[in-house]
């Protein structure tokens, strides 16, 4: 143990800043592998390849490019390669996945809260999954509240942890791809193999395949998180100029926002007519006018109001889920 501590393990006394410091990044004598000339050469080849593929105007910068450019200016150490992101040397398939950098999180929060963009739009812009965007916004809101309440934040801890993890940087003009955002979620109904004979003369599309799994299952194209990205790509392949594509998308966005506002207005109108609020001393009383006959002749209709007579509660029955199943 002492031999290792004083030998190859000596480098870990002073861990390398802005690096994962995994064992696999060092060779047997304790030298950083990516610091050697051989590794550097292969890196240059890779970056040259990457630049070739960059010609497309819509292509987003890959994760590796940004830190490379930075490091070449500041110090001689090349950025971490995929080799360096293996925490378990024997498990070559496992790689550390990047987390959102602080700047990127701030940018996401600002886009959603300050600019008022939809979660979907922000997700598409930064290439971060919608669920993650939602989580970032919620947690940032908590952070803002804590700052307002003068609560102590664990910022040094955050900095220390983030220093040891690969991060997705924030590049204002060309957002870096953080993760794949348009994956088809696996629906329970599709988890079976079905042998379904269809005649050759019949056009059997993805929609038909969805119906085979379950009559109510939407087709895969409607279940993906960002169908609009597919549309945009189709326009691009059809040779539509970029300005026109953007205008078209803006028009669609405007229509969606209009529809949303209309729904909200209708909900508000319904609430205003259906509910009557009587202010009390400590709280309001909210009266809703209902129809007592909605419970039906047998008094069991689900539309009825009130605790029912004549049958027991089902809350102790098996399979009754009482914890909330979604967050609104």
């Amino acid at each position: 143990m002492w031999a290792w501590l004083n030998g190859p393990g000596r480098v870990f006394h002073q861990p390398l800043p802005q690096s994962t410091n995994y064992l696999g990044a060092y060779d047997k004598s304790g030298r950083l592998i990516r610091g050697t000339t051989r590794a550097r050469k292969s890196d240059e080849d890779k970056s040259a390849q990457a630049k070739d593929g960059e010609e497309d105007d819509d292509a987003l910068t890959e994760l590796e490019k940004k830190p490379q450019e930075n490091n070449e200016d500041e110090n001689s150490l090349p950025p971490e390669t995929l080799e360096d992101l293996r925490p378990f040397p024997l498990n070559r398939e496992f790689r550390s996945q990047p987390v959102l950098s602080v700047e990127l999180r701030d940018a996401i929060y600002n886009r959603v809260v300050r600019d008022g963009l939809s979660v979907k739009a922000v997700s598409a812009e930064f290439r971060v999954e919608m669920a993650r965007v939602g989580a970032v916004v919620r947690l940032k809101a908590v952070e803002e509240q804590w700052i307002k309440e003068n609560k102590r934040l664990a910022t040094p801890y955050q900095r220390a942890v983030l220093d040891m993890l690969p991060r997705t940087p924030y590049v204002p003009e060309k957002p870096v791809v953080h993760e794949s955002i348009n994956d088809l979620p696996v629906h329970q109904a599709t988890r079976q193999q079905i042998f379904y004979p269809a005649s050759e003369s019949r056009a059997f599309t993805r929609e038909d395949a969805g119906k085979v799994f379950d009559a109510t299952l939407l087709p895969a194209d409607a279940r993906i998180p960002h169908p609009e990205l597919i549309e945009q790509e189709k326009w691009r392949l059809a040779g539509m100029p970029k300005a026109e594509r953007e205008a078209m998308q803006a028009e669609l966005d405007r229509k969606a926002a209009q529809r949303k506002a209309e729904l909200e207005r209708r909900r508000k109108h319904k609430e205003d007519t259906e509910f009557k609020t009587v202010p009390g001393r400590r709280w309001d009383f909210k009266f809703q006018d209902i129809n007592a006959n909605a419970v039906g002749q047998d008094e069991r209709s689900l539309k009825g109001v009130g605790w029912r007579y004549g049958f027991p509660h089902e809350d102790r029955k098996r399979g009754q889920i009482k914890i909330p199943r979604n967050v609104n």
Partner: protein
Amino acid sequence: MVVKIRLARFGKRNAPFYNIVVAHARTARNSKPIEVLGTYDPIPKEPRESEAGNEGQKRKFKDIKLDTVRAKYWLGVGAQPSDPMWRILAMIGLIEPRYRPESQEIKSGSAPATVRGKSASKKLVPEVLGSAV
């Protein structure tokens, strides 16, 4: 037998929930009533985000669901609200309030005593509001 409009306590321990029922006075609290008029949830709910934005201030609220048409009918045929139900029905003006803090001064003066019982229950919203104010 007297027909009453009253509350029937359902819900769980520490989580009361009431049915607003029309029932004969001498029947048990939770026995099957003549009719269920609605519900009263006495636990104040947190205001929703959207409402707080509009109002500017957050106020908790209690949910009351009530079939006003049926309630008016039962009051009209002489059903007698219990005290808590009197308060609730008075809030939406179906009957005249029994007691209000600012009316004490009026009572001590020459103003007539508040109309109670059947005659009050027959009056509908605008009249009651007019006389109360």
